[in-house]
């Protein structure tokens, strides 16, 4: 009986720390609005560049590929600052008050939500300027949501690695982009099928694969991050 209560208390404390960490992420982001604004400007100007260079000459399959290429670079830039903006002292402080595993989970969840927002906005602007040839918009949006989830969970650990190494965005791109390639292949296939209006029965396999890779990535980050954190 007593064991049970202890476990419950432990779980409640862990959840409390976790939620506090998540709140902290959001508040920092909210106070430093310039970083959100920076990413949004990045996305909007990239979409605008594509609009200036591709408008009117864009076949639908290229439309899809171009969208995901924009997303790859936007997500690398959006998540690069995830660990870099924190000083050594601040990280040491978090290390004392929280479990590194809770810390990385809160980062992954925050980045996921953040990237989902960025990608949905990007999709909105993109279809506004370059047209929207998608036949099954609901399925395409699901692809965007799961795709940005997978991107966020891979890039969060990469961002931690890059920040421990030499803190450069270049290193982040070098380390991250090769690892995004398999995800990109799956997600482009999924969203191409959604664009062509294929049935769920054809496309479900790709989504399941994406979710499986995502779960695996989060589990790996959860296990590996504590080693990265130690000094």
């Amino acid at each position: 009986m007593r064991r049970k209560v202890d476990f419950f208390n432990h779980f409640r404390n862990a959840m409390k720390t976790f939620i506090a960490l998540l709140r902290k992420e959001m508040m920092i982001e909210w106070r430093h609005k310039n970083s959100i604004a920076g990413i949004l400007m990045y996305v909007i100007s990239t979409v605008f560049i594509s609009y200036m260079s591709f408008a009117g000459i864009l076949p639908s399959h290229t439309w899809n590929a171009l969208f995901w290429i924009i997303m790859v670079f936007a997500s690398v830039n959006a998540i690069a600052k995830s660990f870099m903006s924190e000083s050594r002292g601040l990280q040491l402080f978090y290390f004392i008050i929280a479990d590194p595993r809770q810390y990385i989970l809160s980062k992954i969840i925050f980045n996921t939500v953040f990237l989902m927002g960025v990608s949905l906005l990007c999709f909105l602007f993109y279809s506004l300027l370059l047209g929207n040839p998608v036949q099954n918009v609901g399925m395409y949006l699901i692809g965007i949501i799961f795709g940005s989830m997978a991107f966020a969970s891979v890039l969060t650990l990469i961002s931690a690695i890059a920040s421990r190494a030499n803190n450069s965005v270049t290193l982040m791109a070098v380390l991250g982009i090769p690892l995004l390639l398999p995800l990109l292949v799956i997600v482009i296939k999924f969203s191409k099928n959604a664009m062509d209006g294929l049935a769920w029965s054809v496309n479900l396999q790709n989504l399941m694969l994406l979710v499986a890779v995502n779960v695996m990535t989060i589990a790996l980050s959860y296990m590996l991050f504590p080693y990265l954190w130690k000094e």
Partner: protein
Amino acid sequence: MKNHWWKVVGVFLVLYSLYAGLANDVPRLAILNETIRNIYFHVPMWFTMMFLYGVSVVYSIIHLSKFEMKSDMVADYAARTGMAFGFLGLFTGMIWAQFTWGSFWVSDTKLNGSAATMLVYAAYFVLRNSVEDEQKRARIAAVYNIFSFVLMLVFIMVLPRLTDSLHPGNGGNPAFAAYDLDNNMRLVFYPAVTGWILTGLWMMQLQIRIQKIKTYLESK
């Protein structure tokens, strides 16, 4: 001799596969013709590469559990030797592709997967070079190695099975049976794989020894 027999076996098997691979009878198939002999040289390169990358990951895991610099060194040199075999695999594959598929590079999931693997390990070496402190470098590199190896497995093991590929054994293409990897070919193919893996391990061991001597001389 007690500890070196495997090197002799490796060299012997490689020499045997060179001779038997070029001189033995092979099935006569359309398009492939005599290029089928490349199976003894192209495929073992990939097997050796995957084996060495596997060694590298295992030693990365050992490093994270024990924090020994020795295991980090093995992980590093296993990855380097694996990359060399990867280049050889890519090179032999490109020649083969030119004579059977008509172009040095075709868009195929296996080719893309192997190119991405090259990129990942190139990134691994960039990461190693960008950290000065040895202990820190070892730990960060180990984390990246494990993380990327698992993701790469998805790319080169899972994805090709779900898509069409020109390679045998993928997306409806029958496996080795199509090449009629008959018993005569097996007699050369399996020794070739074993021989190249042993040779690869020996290459790795030699590199590690050279590195150890270098660090010893520097510290003197």
